[in-house]
């Protein structure tokens, strides 16, 4: 019997080893893919990374062409996306988790939100074309693009917000309610502060998804060649801000990349690689910020 048991334990330990080896193998594989991608981009793109790349408009001459209109466009579109998606998404998450009665209608809504997160982005583009561009006549503008991407990432923000809120133990809420706190006091003093790290992480992951989206923006009519900038949101004369930029045509980094890749001249492909490198660096730094914020807020709230 004791012999059987020791071989049994031995076998279990072998399974453990096998699992470990398989996991590490796949981990290395995915790491290698990312590494190869980065290396490839860097190899062909670094020669183009210079001040000129960021300060020049696109051009017929590959060595003069830059991503000025693309990164400014990306920035402005992301600004609109943030302003639209964050308040809506966080509020919807809080509502569903804290306020909504648990019944069939809310269950249906919840399931559909999770489904929305999986809808292909091009479908969002088609819908935006129908609603924002034609119905509301917002044009093929920064505003339309920002709102489209906001719709696209809204489900992600809602789902991650809810998950972050759900991680707060019920006993903490009960403690606050028992002291006579209202629902809003519980939300603003406990639920939001304790879940902020998770909520912010979700927001940034959603933003890094939005920043790389191309399909829905092509659908709503983003331009691929823009040699001007939208009007500045801030100005030196009163009232110091203006909203004309919202109606301006635009392009974004991934679309600029796509444009260059589709040209026959291989010199343009170098530009595309450089733009891709910039986009990748932006995404990686956004994820780094997400990790930093999560650590910060975990430290502040000590369970």
């Amino acid at each position, binding site marked *: 019997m004791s012999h059987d048991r020791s071989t049994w334990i031995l076998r279990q330990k072998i399974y453990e080893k096998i699992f470990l080896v398989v996991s590490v193998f796949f981990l290395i594989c995915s790491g290698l893919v990312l590494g190869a991608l980065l290396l490839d981009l860097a190899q062909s793109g670094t020669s183009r990374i210079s001040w000129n790349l960021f300060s020049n408009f696109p051009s017929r001459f590959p060595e003069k062409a830059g991503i000025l209109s693309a990164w400014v466009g990306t920035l402005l579109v992301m600004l609109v996306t943030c302003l639209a998606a964050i308040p809506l998404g966080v509020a919807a998450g809080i509502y569903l988790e804290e306020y909504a*009665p*648990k019944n069939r209608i809310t269950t249906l809504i919840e399931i559909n939100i999770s489904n929305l997160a999986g809808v292909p982005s091009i479908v969002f583009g088609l819908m935006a074309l129908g609603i924002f561009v034609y119905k509301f006549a917002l044009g093929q503008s920064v505003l339309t693009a920002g709102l489209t991407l906001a719709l696209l990432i809204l489900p992600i923000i809602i789902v991650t917000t809810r998950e972050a809120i759900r991680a707060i*133990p019920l*006993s*903490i*809420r*009960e*403690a*606050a*309610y*028992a*002291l*006579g*706190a*209202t629902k809003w*006091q519980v939300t603003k*003093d*406990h639920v939001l502060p*304790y879940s902020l790290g998770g909520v912010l992480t979700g927001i940034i992951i959603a933003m890094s998804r939005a920043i790389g989206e191309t399909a829905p923006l092509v659908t709503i009519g983003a331009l691929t060649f823009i040699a001007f900038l939208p009007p500045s949101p801030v100005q030196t004369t009163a009232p110091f801000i203006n909203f004309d930029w919202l109606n301006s045509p635009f392009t974004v980094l991934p679309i600029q990349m796509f444009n260059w890749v589709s040209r026959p001249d291989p010199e343009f492909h170098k530009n595309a690689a450089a733009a891709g490198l910039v986009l990748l660096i932006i995404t990686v730094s956004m994820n780094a910020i997400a990790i930093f914020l999560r650590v910060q807020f975990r430290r502040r*709230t*000590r*369970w």
Partner: protein
Amino acid sequence: MVAVAPLFAEERIKARVDSLNFFYGETQALKDVNFFVPDKKVVALIGPSGCGKTTLLRCFNRMHDLYANMRSTGRIFLEPSGLDILSKKVDPIELRMKIGMVFQKPNPFPKSIFENVAYGLRIRGEKVASYIDGKVEAALRDAALWDEVKERLHSSASSLSGGQQQRLCMARSLATDPDIMLFDEPTSALDPIATARIEELIDELKSRVTIIIVTHNMQQAGRVADYTAFMYLGELVEFDRTSKIFTNPTQKLTEQYVTGCFG
């Protein structure tokens, strides 16, 4: 329960539970419960698991309102005002401001020690810092925690031990001067020494507040409670002075429970 009236001849009544029924969906958890809570005394609710003692306790501050699919019939009157706690017209927020609660597991907020105790005052709109400071100190002293934490009021509550956390939860509740304190098995997660300290505190507190305590531990009921209610399967079987319940109960079922025949 006819025999209750003479029992309370010498007591002032703080709360009166009148034919209380409680349902979780279709399941009836409390069946026609009637009893009195004497003012500034400790009442223990005892009984085997699932007998409804925690359900009954949570009726006093309407904690059940937080969850769907629960309903009650009957009334709980707060005396001397005669306010019916369970009436829909009574705002649970206002009610909970007068009735404190300490839970089974210590549940401090993940904030500083100071902020934990001050929270009840803050949600009541208290802004004057010196007043809050004074109240926090007084509550921590009442919970016999002041000397242990006065040097580190602004460090995290989770740095305290389990017993200290539970006393912090008591201080948090005491800071707002409740009329009634509800304890839901407050020592079940604590070691014997921490338990003894909580029991001492309950004994000191009853000069100021009325206390209702749910306990699994019959010795604890015997030590801290003036009155004890024995519950079984949602019914209140017997309610009397603690000494009577433990030495000479009227009901056979009570006797079997307190002598350890079941439970």
